[in-house]
């Protein structure tokens, strides 16, 4: 019995220690921002690796998501004779929910796991410790650019996702199902508000980007330096990021819904 309680205690101590380590790592990254001239090219490289290289999956999946939402929505709306409201339906659901959340999930799978695996392998092959031997701080050189890169890339990817998804809906609704283009756009414009809908979605995506980058960097930096350890760290990055995204999405939506 006492053993069980001790096990529970040890488990919760482990959890708290993990949070503490993650917080310390974040503190070191944020409050010791490297010199701008040295750090900027590194951050650019990470924006390339995490943002630009994720573009293709983001564009393709958003196009299909927009098309499928338009197709589903059109047939449901047509039952009520409200197919003119297809534009608002797609634009609001994409700008408020689908855009930030799906981009974040794809980003966690595409970029977050790569960051974790890369840092984990650097640790396993002792590149991080050899950097320290050369008096290069690995947190400045490796961790910080990856975190900032993810943080910057996410909202940019979300904006592109939103536009391609709405364009996909336009293709299906107007070009295929024969809705009037003017009705599609003008109804959309009259019901979508820039600050309440578009900007709130982008605020959500910045929060998600920050959380994904933080989780993946942490999991990589504290991964067990074996091949099995890196594998489980990568898995944990994707699982924890997805859970954090969906949980935070609910909290953020509940906070923002007052304006709607």
């Amino acid at each position: 019995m006492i053993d069980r309680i001790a096990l529970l205690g040890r488990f919760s101590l482990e959890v708290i220690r993990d949070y503490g380590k993650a917080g310390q790592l974040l503190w070191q990254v944020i409050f010791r921002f490297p010199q701008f001239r040295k750090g900027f090219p590194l951050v650019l490289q990470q924006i390339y690796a995490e943002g630009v290289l994720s573009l293709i999956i983001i564009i393709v999946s958003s196009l299909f998501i927009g098309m499928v939402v338009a197709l589903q929505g059109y047939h449901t709306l047509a039952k009520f004779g409200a197919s003119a409201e297809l534009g608002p339906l797609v634009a609001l659901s994409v700008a408020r929910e689908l855009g930030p959340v799906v981009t974040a999930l794809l980003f966690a799978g595409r970029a977050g796991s790569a960051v974790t695996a890369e840092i984990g392998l650097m640790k396993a092959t002792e590149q991080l410790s050899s950097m320290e031997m050369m008096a290069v701080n690995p947190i400045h050189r490796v961790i910080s650019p990856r975190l900032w890169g993810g943080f910057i890339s996410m909202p940019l990817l979300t904006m592109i996702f939103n536009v391609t998804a709405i364009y996909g809906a336009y293709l299906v609704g107007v070009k295929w199902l024969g809705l009037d283009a003017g009705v599609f756009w003008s109804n959309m414009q009259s019901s979508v508000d820039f600050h309440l809908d578009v900007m709130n979605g982008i605020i959500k995506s910045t929060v998600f980007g920050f959380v994904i980058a933080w989780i993946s960097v942490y999991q990589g930096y504290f991964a067990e330096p074996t091949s099995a350890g890196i594998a489980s760290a990568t898995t944990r990055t994707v699982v924890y990021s997805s859970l954090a995204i969906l949980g935070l999405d609910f909290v953020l939506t509940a906070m923002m819904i007052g304006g709607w």
Partner: protein
Amino acid sequence: MLSQRTIETSVGLFLLAAIGALLVLAFKVSGLTSFFKTEGYNVTASFDDIGQLKVRAAVKISGVTIGEVSAIQLDPTTYKAVVTLHIHSNMKDIPDDSSAAILTAGLLGDNYIEISPMYSKTFLKNGSDIEDTNAAMILEKLIGQFLFKIGNNSSDSSATNSNDKSVEKKKSISKGE
């Protein structure tokens, strides 16, 4: 490994694409115009009941949009809703005895304000007030009145009179402040 220049170029393109996407979201999707405040003038109108009218609802003449609702307030003394209409500056010549009514687009659509021009030679200008207003039609109230009328008609014929009286009473209140 790509050269730093290629990376910088592609990141630059990525940023430009994202900014372009944001502009599309702003102007094409959400129809944002408040960045550049459209030239125009403000006119107020007081309504007994605005129904579901919202800020940014359209203001129309003969169905053509000429402005939007920029603010809705409650007058604390008369308990009327004071609606501020922002009318585009290319519509200068609206006679000042025109009437404003709150209508509904379709059976379930959004409310908007329709201005019916009259024949006065003086025109509305910034800060002037539209005096002749018609409140929004509330479907529930209409149904209620209709049922009330049917019920009274079947019992005695003075029903329409009492109904008229209540309408007249309301009018006299609104006229006598």
